[in-house]
């Protein structure tokens, strides 16, 4: 199971990658494996803000639908438009091209409350 050390994680299997004051959010390798083939990612294209802990969309996989929860609050910079035509990127490259949303963090301290890679690994083992 791939759990990159440099990322932050939630119990709901999202990851957060911080770059300066911005952050990328996606779902973990474990999550994509559990969901199976992702058929589409449903995030409102007009979404402007994420609120920590609240749902910002859904991910539809062949076997089930799952809510996406914001690991931190922030202003939406970009929704990964590539997923419109290639939702399977979430399966094949969950930490790379399969990212879901890019935000500007409202409060960077919120990231410290997330799980580190070791704690997340424990949770999924």
């Amino acid at each position, binding site marked *: 199971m791939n759990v990159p050390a440099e990322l932050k994680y939630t119990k709901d299997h999202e990851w957060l990658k911080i770059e300066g004051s911005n952050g990328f959010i996606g779902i973990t390798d474990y999550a994509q494996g559990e969901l*199976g*083939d992702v*058929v*589409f990612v449903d995030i409102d294209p007009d979404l402007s803000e994420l609120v920590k802990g609240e749902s910002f969309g*859904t991910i*539809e996989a062949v076997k089930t639908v799952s809510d996406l929860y914001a690991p931190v609050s922030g202003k939406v910079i970009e929704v990964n438009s590539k997923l419109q035509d290639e939702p399977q990127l979430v*399966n094949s490259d969950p930490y790379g091209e399969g990212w879901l949303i890019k935000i500007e963090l409202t409060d960077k301290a919120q990231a410290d409350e997330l799980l580190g890679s070791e704690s997340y690994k424990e949770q999924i083992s």
Partner: protein
Amino acid sequence: MKQTKFYDIHEKLGAKLVDFAGFKMPIQYTSIIEEHKCVRNSVGVFDVSHMGEVKVKGEKALDFVQFITVNDASKLVPGKVQYSAMCYEDAGIVDDLLVYKINDNEYMLVINASNIEKDLRWMNQNNSFGVSIIDETEEYSLLAVQGPYSDQVVRKLYPESGSLEYYTFTTAVYNDIPLLISRTGYTGELGYEIYFKGNVEQAEKIWNDIFSFGHEYKIKPVGLGARDSLRLEMGYCLYGNDIDQTTNTLEAGLGWITKLKKDNFIGKNSLLKVKENGLKRKLVAITSDEKCFPRHGYDITLEDKKIGVVTSGMVSPVTEKPIALAYVEIDYASVGGAVNFLIRGKEIPAKIVQLPFVKKII
């Protein structure tokens, strides 16, 4: 938890195994969509050994089968297969099944894994014909080889299988193991189902040989996930989803197997009444141009009113459009009719279409 003879193979292949009807079964090996496309474009192999095989033997075997099933088994000759269903007195469906005529005194009924105990109880309860009802599920392995190149593969097990017509079967011997090969399946593709008895070693040998015969066609193992998506693209009913004891064959679109002119059979009077009173609802096929994923239990609405419910739904791996089977009130159940999927409180425009969702020549 029961295992099929191929359990070790599934584990070695890294299949995702799930509990299904008391068996540990592979739901997928790599990807449901990939496996689905492999069957549509080339050839795939399913372990469906969890299915139930029940032999009915005796002088009155035909009379018994005629009494407990809705189709006309007297039309069968040895070597023919028939799709049928068993109903309760009130027309609710006990199970859908395949009926194989072995000879005048012997039939094989292939039933759903999740219904084996219930079906056996039902058969025994209604055996006033003195037939032997023998459950051979544990002994039988069953592999479904499905896809446009399946004939090339099965021919190498048994050269004459190529001449099998749809819904017929033959017996053969391969490596000293008797096989029953039928041209049947649950995918809409050219395909075969291979029944045999044997130990793990013999079963694994047949599996491995099939895979070496299919190597040039990029043959793949296919799990129950793709089995479900393949059957839904064709609009085939799945017991427990689209049909059960609360539905009848007429509203489920299975009128073609319901032979109301046949002599007395269980459920006949109720089915005649259903027909006389007219259907209240019908199982219909629904698709949409919108991006959405209909699932079992979602409502079908029209002008804010619930008019039906989805029994099976998904996004077709072939058309990439949402497809669903749903029971819809009869007044709204015509092909071409506009309806909505209600998905998390949002109405999504859809329309009723003719089956199958994916056109196939089998």
